[in-house]
């Protein structure tokens, strides 16, 4: 609902000083590679901001994205975001409230017209009039159009909302599309991943709240702060790739020695995400560190790229042609894929 108090006053009433903002901003600044001056400005702006009204819509999804954000590494610094937002509506968490919560959604939209943020997880089915996913008697499409109309911005969390994800995988029986395929007149920020890294979700919301603007995005609508770097470029196994030392199977000597997982299907070279640097579960690990190749879950159509255990050289188009031959030549592979990665990064930065 509409808030009169600033976040600073609100926390002060609960006995928490402005130091919380200094701390939160330095944490977020570290995650988003903000300059110290920007972090300082963020702390000041957050303290002056009002609680952000957020309406969370859940469409064709598995609830993994909600699980990821609500079970982020708390209950301390990382949980402050829940003091910064007013979660006025959440399809899944408030389902049992029935009509009352639908009224709350309409009230929040009216009171915060033009200011509220809509977070969507899940894709939208369009086939057969959108009957494959409905809430409160309305198709996801109708709910999205109605809710997004007066929003300040839309955040598509998870690969399903950002790019259609698994519901859109071949043969796409429900005619699933992404949020960006439907909403064309508002900023749509994509935070893909299956699920996304929680800090990428909360960090983006905090940035919107502090600066009142959309962070810099790449050509796929993702915040560059979290998706500007290639998994492969930041992978701790990269030196093995450069030396042409590859695991050929998950139980061979190469796998036991922690060599590069490229030949067992790792999609790191074509995937942009922060997994290799931020990691998961409070920085404990990420898939490659746990011995499995990257699935490329933050990229469009990751489910249909030829198989998780098929090397890139045998799975997809132009990249495969360039990298394929080089992979056979061991160490040369490193140079080829690094060139692809650099080219992609260069295009991304220009875009």
């Amino acid at each position, binding site marked *: 609902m509409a808030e009169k108090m600033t976040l*600073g*006053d609100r926390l*002060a009433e609960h006995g*928490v*000083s*402005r*130091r*919380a903002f*200094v*701390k*939160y901003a*330095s*944490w977020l*600044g*570290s995650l988003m*590679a903000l300059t*110290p001056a920007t*972090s*300082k400005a963020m702390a000041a702006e957050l*303290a002056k901001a009002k609680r952000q009204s957020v309406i969370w819509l859940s469409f064709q999804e598995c609830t993994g994205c909600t699980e990821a954000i609500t079970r982020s*590494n*708390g*209950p*301390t*610094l*990382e*949980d*402050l975001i829940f003091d910064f937002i007013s979660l006025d509506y959440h399809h899944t968490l408030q389902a049992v409230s029935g009509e009352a919560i639908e009224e709350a959604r309409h009230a929040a939209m009216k009171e915060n017209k033009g200011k509220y943020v809509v977070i969507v997880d899940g894709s939208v089915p369009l086939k057969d009039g959108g009957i494959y996913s409905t809430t409160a008697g309305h198709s996801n499409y109708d709910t999205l159009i109605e809710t997004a109309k007066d929003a300040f911005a839309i955040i598509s969390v998870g690969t399903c909302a950002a790019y259609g994800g698994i519901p859109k995988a071949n043969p796409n029986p429900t005619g699933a599309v992404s949020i960006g395929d439907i909403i064309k007149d508002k900023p749509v920020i994509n935070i893909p991943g299956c699920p996304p890294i929680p800090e990428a979700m909360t960090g983006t919301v905090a940035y919107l709240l502090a600066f009142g603007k959309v962070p810099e995005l790449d050509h796929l609508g993702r915040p560059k702060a979290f998706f500007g770097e290639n998994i492969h470029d930041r992978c*701790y*196994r990269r*030196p*093995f790739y450069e030396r042409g030392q590859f695991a050929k199977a998950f139980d061979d000597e190469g*796998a*036991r*020695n*922690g060599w590069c997982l490229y030949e067992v299907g790792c999609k790191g070279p074509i995937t942009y995400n922060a997994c290799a640097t931020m990691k998961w*579960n*409070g*920085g*404990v690990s990420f898939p490659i*560190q746990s*011995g499995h190749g990257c699935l490329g879950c933050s990229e469009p159509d990751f489910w249909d790229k030829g198989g998780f255990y098929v090397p890139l050289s045998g799975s997809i188009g132009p990249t495969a042609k360039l990298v394929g031959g080089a992979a056979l030549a061991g160490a040369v592979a490193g140079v080829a894929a690094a060139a692809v990665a650099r080219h992609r990064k260069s295009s991304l930065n220009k875009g």
Partner: protein
Amino acid sequence: MNADCAAPVAAASLADAVFAELATALVRLAETGEETVVDLKSLPFSPADLEALAARLGTGEVSCELEVAGRSEVRETSYSGIWWIRHIGGDGSAVVEEVVVARVPEILISHPDDVAFAARRMREAVEQTPTGETTAADEEDMSRG
């Protein structure tokens, strides 16, 4: 699995580079008052690198522990104006680790809005203090004459 296979950089070299950067930043602070923050998490520090840097910076006179949205540690190094700060996350590990070059780190300073809020609270506390009632301490004072 061999998980510790970072690029073969000598443990001390990165610590030395950051130490030199901090020395330059400290000169800036002394001459112009400009503050600097070095985010240790953004650098490819190994535990050995961090230990080497901490050892070179040494320990100063001030050590603070904060409880604000979780625990934080602020420690002055043996070089006045260089502070080592750690913010601890829910699992007990450092979610932020930085070296701040400043006379006093911002997180230790009471924010003007907090001071104003505290002043209001304190004034209310004074106003709510019962007046005209004699306390046991007052009676003892009076009996002493």
